[in-house]
Structures are given as structure tokens and as C-alpha cells.
């Protein structure tokens, strides 16, 4: 697409708005791009793009994977633009490209790392062709926005440019079937001891063969539709993995990644399988663009998961663990519940998953609670579950539907006084599971829990 006069006017307006916002000390990561795509709907098509674009999409893990890719590139001297401060929809990409462009509309850097919202595919890929596109996974997400995985995988397949090389999670059969004509490599984790033959989750979005509709036989199930499977009637099966974790040593915190018959070891920073997938996605794309194990591992090894997502702290002899559990995202919450139940020791769990915007302005659609495996919280080692927020009555009913004994559940509207009900007797770990918009609440609850432990 050519740059016309309208494009230049919009580019200058957007650049001016950026300068003005910066002068008055306001966030300039959203408005300039929003202005540009509103005034010039094909702005993304007209502005120059860096020569190489790494895109990261998928339901869960996009931000973490982008952060890891960016840290590795930075440490190794690469210069690039990215949208990590802005949004991951078309206007966010536009803001980043406006910032990166000269007054002639030329990009000053040759490389970009873009987190790309999967639902925004229709507004992005007609104009932006990622050189590499990572897809971490595709799960049920906010049903109001993303509906179901078939909808999301269709819009991805129909919009991803043919020239884009895909870096796909080969253990996710919905992801591995994306844009079948495109060049691709797969990453995956070989069977683990914790994998099972039967799906324990409520939700499994792929049970029949995408080619012939016959029943799929799962070789193993990791969670939901993640695992490996083959069709009983045709030749369809999970793909051959190019970057495969062949072994994980949780004691030494190491994993081995095999690529083209060569096995390399990497340090893992946490024992959560989700993080191992995120690291593996990062390693796969960085190897594709030519980085070596020795350029990647030292950076990943020193990664700190941002404490808005995960934190662990010991106060006296009790561990306080906070874990982001995105509300309205049933798989993310189920993973968090599974993580809690599998951790050693006796546990108390705060469940604070309400959407605070909805609580203030509406009445949250709680259908997603019933796609979420609350049943995992019904575990002998979980001694107390404390929940509060606008939907406390609904959450209490949902927990009863999961057969969690009533006497283990504390439920009330007020969040802050919940900590007073925490029973620390015999407890080794206190988990605080919280929504993305509840970071302040999480911090306050955490502080109160610390005080409670110190008082005991």
C-alpha cells in the first residue's frame, strides 16, 4: 500500500499527539495509534514496517513469551521496536510503528516484536505480515469476546499471511492445525510422568479428527485438549515436533530441548508447566532467527516472573504464593487450581477472580465458572478456601457444585476483612489467586496475610 497525502497528515497528527501527551505527562502508548487507525483505517498497511517481524499470539502466555524474547534480544545487542507498553490490538501496533517511524514514515529499526491479540487477526494481518508468528495455545477465553476456539482458529487461518512462518505448539491440536498451507515448525513437550490417559478437565475442545470426524485417540492428555493424539480411522495425528523437551529435571531445575538430533540443556525458573511451554516457545523462535543456546540460556536463567503474575515469599515458616488467574478465562484459572492442588503441604487458598470493572458497572456473566475446574480445589491438602467479591454467592454455589465441603469455604462480599477468617493452623502455604485487574487487591491481601502470620 502506498503512502498518500492523507497518510502523512495522519502520521504527523499522531506524532504530534504523542509529543503533546508526553509533555503533559500522560500515557502515549494508546491514543496516537487509535487516532491513526480511526482517521485512516488502512494506516497499518500504509506505514513502513521493520524488515523482520516476530509476532506472538495465542490465548495464554503471549505477554510472558514476548517479554522473554525481548530480554534475550536486548541482552544480545539486537535493536527492535515492540508494543509491550501498549495494547496488542491494531491501534497498539500502530502506536508502536508511529513511534518507530521517521518523519518520512520510514522505520528506524529493522526488527519488531509484536504481541498480537488473536481476536484482532482480521484487523492486523491484512496489513502486517509477521516473518515469524508464534502461537502458544488456543483455549476458551472470554466468551463474550472470543466465543469459542473454532471461531478464533478460523479467523487466524483465514487471515494469517501465506508468507508467515509459523512456530506452533504441536501439543495443542487446535494450534497445530492453523493455516495448514503455511511453512511451520512445532514445539512440544514429550510425555511427562504427570500426564494421564484420561482428560480430567471439564473442557476439551477437540475430541474428533479434524480431517474425517472420527473419534480421536489421545496417546496422553496433559490438560484440556493439550496432549498427543491420533485418529483411529485416517492418518491424522499430532505433528512431528521440531523443538521438543525430552526431559525435565525438577530437582536440578533443568530441561533438555532436542532440535535436529541435537539436545541442549536449559535452566528452568519455575516448575509450572505453563512456564516451561512459554520458555520453549521463546527458545524455538529465537533459534529460528539464529540465536544459540549460549545466547539464550543465560538470559532465561535470570528471568524473574513479574510479581503481578506470580510471586513466592516465605514469612516465618509459611509460604505466600500469589498467582495470576485471569478471570473469564476458564483454562487459566483451571491451571492455577491444578497448580495449587499439586503443590506439597497443607494449603489455604484465596480465590479472588471477579472482574472488578464488571463488579462496578454491571453484573458479571458467570457462565465461565462452569467451564473452570473448581473440582481441583476439592482436595484433601486444601484445608480452607476463602472467596470474596461481587460474585461471592455464585462462587460459593459453584464450589458446592464441585462437592467442596461447606465447612472448608469462607465466603463474603467484603474482600479486605476476609484475611481475618484465615485459619493458619497446620498451614504450610497460602495461595492468593487473583484476576488481572485485581493487582492492588492482591497486594493488600498479601500484606494482611503477612501481618497475620507475624502475629501468630
Amino acid at each position: 500500500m502506498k503512502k498518500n497525502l492523507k497518510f502523512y497528515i495522519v502520521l504527523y497528527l499522531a506524532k504530534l499527539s504523542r509529543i503533546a501527551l508526553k509533555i503533559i505527562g500522560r500515557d502515549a502508548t494508546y491514543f496516537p495509534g487509535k487516532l491513526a487507525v480511526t482517521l485512516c483505517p488502512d494506516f497499518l498497511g500504509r506505514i513502513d514496517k521493520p524488515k523482520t517481524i516476530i509476532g506472538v499470539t495465542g490465548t495464554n502466555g503471549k505477554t510472558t513469551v514476548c517479554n522473554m524474547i525481548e530480554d534475550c534480544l536486548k541482552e544480545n545487542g539486537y535493536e527492535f521496536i515492540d508494543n509491550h507498553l501498549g495494547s496488542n490490538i491494531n491501534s497498539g501496533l500502530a502506536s508502536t510503528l508511529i513511534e518507530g517511524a521517521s518523519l518520512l514514515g520510514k522505520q528506524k529499526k529493522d526488527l519488531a516484536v509484536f504481541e498480537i491479540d488473536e481476536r484482532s487477526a482480521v484487523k492486523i494481518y491484512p496489513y502486517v505480515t509477521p516473518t515469524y508468528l508464534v502461537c502458544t495455545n488456543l483455549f476458551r477465553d472470554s466468551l463474550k469476546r472470543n466465543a469459542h476456539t473454532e471461531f478464533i482458529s478460523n479467523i487466524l487461518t483465514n487471515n494469517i499471511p501465506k508468507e508467515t512462518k509459523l512456530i506452533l505448539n504441536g501439543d495443542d491440536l487446535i494450534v497445530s492445525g492453523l493455516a495448514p498451507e503455511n511453512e511451520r515448525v512445532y514445539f512440544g513437550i514429550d510425555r511427562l510422568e504427570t500426564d494421564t490417559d484420561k482428560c480430567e478437565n471439564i473442557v476439551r475442545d477437540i475430541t474428533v479428527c479434524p480431517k474425517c470426524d472420527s473419534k480421536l485417540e489421545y496417546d496422553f492428555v496433559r490438560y484440556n485438549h493439550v496432549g498427543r493424539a491420533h485418529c483411529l480411522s485416517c492418518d491424522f495425528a499430532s505433528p512431528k515436533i521440531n523443538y521438543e523437551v525430552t526431559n525435565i529435571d525438577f530437582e536440578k531445575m533443568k530441561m533438555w530441548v532436542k532440535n535436529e538430533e541435537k539436545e541442549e540443556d536449559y535452566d528452568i525458573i519455575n516448575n509450572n508447566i505453563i512456564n516451561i511451554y512459554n520458555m520453549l516457545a521463546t527458545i524455538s523462535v529465537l533459534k529460528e532467527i539464529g540465536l544459540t543456546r549460549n545466547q539464550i540460556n543465560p538470559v532465561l536463567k535470570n528471568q524473574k516472573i513479574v510479581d503481578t503474575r506470580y510471586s513466592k515469599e516465605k514469612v516465618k515458616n509459611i509460604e505466600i504464593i500469589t498467582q495470576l488467574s485471569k478471570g473469564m478465562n476458564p483454562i487459566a484459572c483451571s491451571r492455577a487450581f491444578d497448580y495449587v492442588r499439586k503443590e506439597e503441604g497443607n494449603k489455604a487458598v484465596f480465590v479472588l477472580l471477579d472482574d472488578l470493572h464488571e463488579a462496578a458497572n454491571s453484573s458479571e456473566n458467570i457462565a465461565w465458572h462452569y467451564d473452570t475446574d473448581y473440582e481441583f480445589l476439592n482436595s484433601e491438602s486444601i484445608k480452607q478456601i476463602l472467596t470474596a467479591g461481587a460474585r461471592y454467592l455464585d462462587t460459593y454455589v459453584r464450589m458446592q457444585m464441585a462437592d467442596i465441603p461447606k465447612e472448608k469455604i469462607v465466603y463474603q462480599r467484603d474482600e479486605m476483612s476476609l484475611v481475618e477468617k484465615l485459619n493458619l493452623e497446620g498451614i504450610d502455604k497460602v495461595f492468593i489467586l487473583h484476576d488481572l485487574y485485581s493487582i492492588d487487591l492482591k497486594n493488600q491481601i498479601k500484606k494482611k496475610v503477612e501481618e497475620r502470620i507475624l502475629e501468630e
Partner: protein
Amino acid sequence: MNKTIEILFPEFCNLYGDISNMKYIQKCIPESNFIETSFNEEPTFVKNDVDLIYMGPMTEKMQEKVTEKLKKYKQRIEELIEKNVVFLITGNALEIFGKYIENEDGTKIEALGIFDIYSKRNMMKRHNSNFIGKYEDIEIVGFKSQFTQSYGNNEQNYFAKVEKGIGLNPESSFEGLQKNNFIATYLIGPILILNPEFTQKVLKKMEIQKPKIAFEEDVKKAYEQRLKELKRL
């Protein structure tokens, strides 16, 4: 009071937590017989009498396959409706019982034609809303989240009269479909858990005398709270 409940194609018709409706029925009448019929099987209702037939929302691709499959049994379904068998059909499963479903490009998927309505898809415009509606003497609460809207006259056979939110489409004041004990609604999610009095009515329709609903006190409190919130909005 051993009742038989048939859940149609739960491996596919399971979006938005709707299967929880049947899990709740199971908590209410645990001694009943629950049959989960998978897509490649012949439904039990074809040759046997059942007390409740349930089908929940599904993807668009599956909706077309399920429509094709159920066409064979249209006559039997009509017979069961006449015999007052209870049907609970949620989300876009409703559309299968209308005349046709129209795609954006104008192509049509012929449906069962039991009700005089038709549906139109718009995959780039998802409708979300909250709902309050009057069903007999009670108020129903719930949520809608859908790509489709339905059109046609359901004034004589609607499920609930709209008090807040939309009916079959944004201009309609009548939500869902009802004929005898056949109930279809665009409401999604755990509607039976959200609406304890309605659940009681469904159980009564299944000829359960003095039905007792599970976690009665707690579900009623949650219902009252939601009703109050939705009225305030």
C-alpha cells in the same frame, strides 16, 4: 420417581458451561438415569420414552452437523413435543428447531422447521447482554452471548416476555420458544442454577411431585442478588 434424562451430544454441545445445567439436575434428582448420547449414536428418544431431553450451545460447524443429524428424527421430536416430554434447549441449539439458518453470504442451512422462525449469522458482530424476563409467574435472569439473531413471530409460543434485554432479536419483546413442555432459549450458561424457581418448574413438568432443588437456600440468595443487580442496571 426414577426419571430418564437424555443429554444430546455433550462432547460438542457444551459451550459456555451449559452442561452444568444437567450436573445441577443430577444434584437435584440424583437417583435418575442420565444418558449421554454421543454424536455418532442414535438418540435414545428415537425408540424410548425419556423424561427430559437437553441440548446446549455448540460451534457453527457442529450446529450444521447436528441439524443434519436431527432432521431424520423430526417426526419423532414433534411427536414427543405433543406427548408433553420436557425439552430444554439452550443457546444456538434453539436455531436448529427453526426453519433455516442464514450465513452472511446469503447461503442457508435448512433446519428442522418445527417453529416458524429463522436465524441470521453475523460472525463479526457478537451480541452480549443481560436478561430479565417473565416466565409464568416468575422472573427469569440470565445472559446472552451470540453471533446470531432470530426472526419471525413467536408471540404465541415464546419462552419469556422480556423485561430487560432482548428477545429473539433486538427488536423483539419475546425470548425463546415454548410449545407444551418444549423450552428453547438463547440464554446461556448455568440457567437452572441461576433460576431456582424455574428449575423447580422444570422438575414439576417432569412429573416430580414436590421437587427439592439442590443447595436451595444458597442458589436462592444468589438469584435474589442477581435479580436486584440486573434491575438496577
